């Protein structure tokens, strides 16, 4: 057994068998190894995928795997079904990467949009939603600016601001639908709220967030 000096930047190679060889084998430094998405190219991952870049496909998994997994797990609950859904989402993402338009949304939002559609479709197909017992009774606290600014992009930050401006009851309905994945009927049952009111809260609340996002987009952040 040969022992190294512990410096792995240059590990002396061993030949086949036990014959030492003189040619060194360089181990890449950790900093060279991490496939940081943003240091490979300024081009978006989805654009690179659409252009057939295999490394971008893997980087997309690394970048958004946690997001998609968490979303699907939260909506579906069941681990096996979640795994199937996550696979569906990524295949859909790779296929639809060419449709991503950076002028309309961030890449993160596009990924979340595709993932939500897929998972909601799956929920609908199976005809059953979440375990309503897992829904906590407390309404959502508007996310803090600190959390959003660290973890999320500008769109999410603006959406958080918009959300915070809504009446508490509307925020609660939106959280149960958009974040928890409940149908309007389930929300009606859970909150003991008339179905028409639930639909109204969803429509008006989401319209408000949409309007804020589109205004920001059209003014380039000067609104």
């Amino acid at each position, binding site marked *: 057994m040969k022992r*190294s000096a512990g410096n792995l930047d240059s590990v002396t190679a061993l030949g086949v068998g036990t014959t030492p060889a003189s040619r060194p084998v360089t181990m890449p430094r950790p900093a060279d190894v991490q496939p940081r998405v943003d240091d490979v190219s300024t081009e978006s991952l989805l654009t690179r995928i659409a252009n*057939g870049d295999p490394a971008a496909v*893997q980087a997309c998994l*690394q970048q958004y795997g946690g997001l998609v997994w*968490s979303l699907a797990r939260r909506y579906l609950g069941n681990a096996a079904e979640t795994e199937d859904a996550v696979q569906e989402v990524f295949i859909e993402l790779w296929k639809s990467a060419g449709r991503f338009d950076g002028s309309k949304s961030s890449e993160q939002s596009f990924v979340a949009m595709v993932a939500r559609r897929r998972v909601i479709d799956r929920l609908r197909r199976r005809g059953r939603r979440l375990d309503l017992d897992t829904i906590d009774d407390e309404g959502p606290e508007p996310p803090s600016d600190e959390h959003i600014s660290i973890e999320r992009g500008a769109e999410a930050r603006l959406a958080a601001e918009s959300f915070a401006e809504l009446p508490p009851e509307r925020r609660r309905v939106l959280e149960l639908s958009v974040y928890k994945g409940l149908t309007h009927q389930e929300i009606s049952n859970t909150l003991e709220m008339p179905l028409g009111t639930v639909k109204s809260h969803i429509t008006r609340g989401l319209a408000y967030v949409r309007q804020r996002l589109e205004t920001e987009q059209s003014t380039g952040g000067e609104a």
Partner: protein
Amino acid sequence: MNAHLHSELDTLLALRAACGLSASESERLESLLAAEPSAEHDGFDRAAAALMLALDRGTSQMPETLQRQLRIAGDEWCERQPEPAGEPQQSVDEGVERNHNLVAFPERRGSAPAWAVAAMALLVAALGWFPAFRGAVSPDTSSELNGPTPAAAELSPFDAREALLVAGTDVVTIEWTATDDPTASAATGDVVWSAAEQRGFMRFAGLVPNDANEFQYQLWIFDSARDERYPVDGGVFDILENGEVVVPILPTLPVTDATLFAVTVERPGGVMVSSRERINLVASVVAP
């Protein structure tokens, strides 16, 4: 479309974006969209996605097995895509028909010898969608050996290693070189690898047993045909005992020209890309 229908259309688009529609609602939406083909369909979806991100209280990591499945699926997907415009089409004759079950990046396709491609196809076919490989492999755990042939699968890892050494035509044996990592302070052993069969074995003695809830070992195979930033994942494994242990190597991707085997200490479940902060063993292959 009058104001009432516009309002109904917006409501259905918002409800679809927020939490999906029932069958009857979907039918109604389709009829409204048919009457208003210029309607902007995605605005509510984008708003819902942004709001979901805003409300998200943190993401969790997907399971390692799923990560691996997706990495393989990603490679397969890439394999099926047409070559980028402007580049010459890669020839895939060489006696090997394009096989969509293969897992290789398009730019590697031409460099993989036919036998490696065929062996990988057999491996993929034999092991199914993904050969989940976990757990300690001790001398008597023959059932945990997922060899590519039924005969090999019936052998213990020890016996399978010996069989490969005897029957393999291109088998290399490389001693481990330990680093200063405390897990490998008393470690000895070697790697046996056959490129033709795309399999091999790691033998360890003295490698510190691990608690899988605290950390796990992970093998990486550097391939001269691949970007060195992305070595092939050789599997996550545990060492449960101090005696001699043989662990099968089941790479998740074809290895055309292995240049270096490295074991790292990783968090439970392993990682997709190692920080290489704790490399404890390496075995380097140098062409004779």
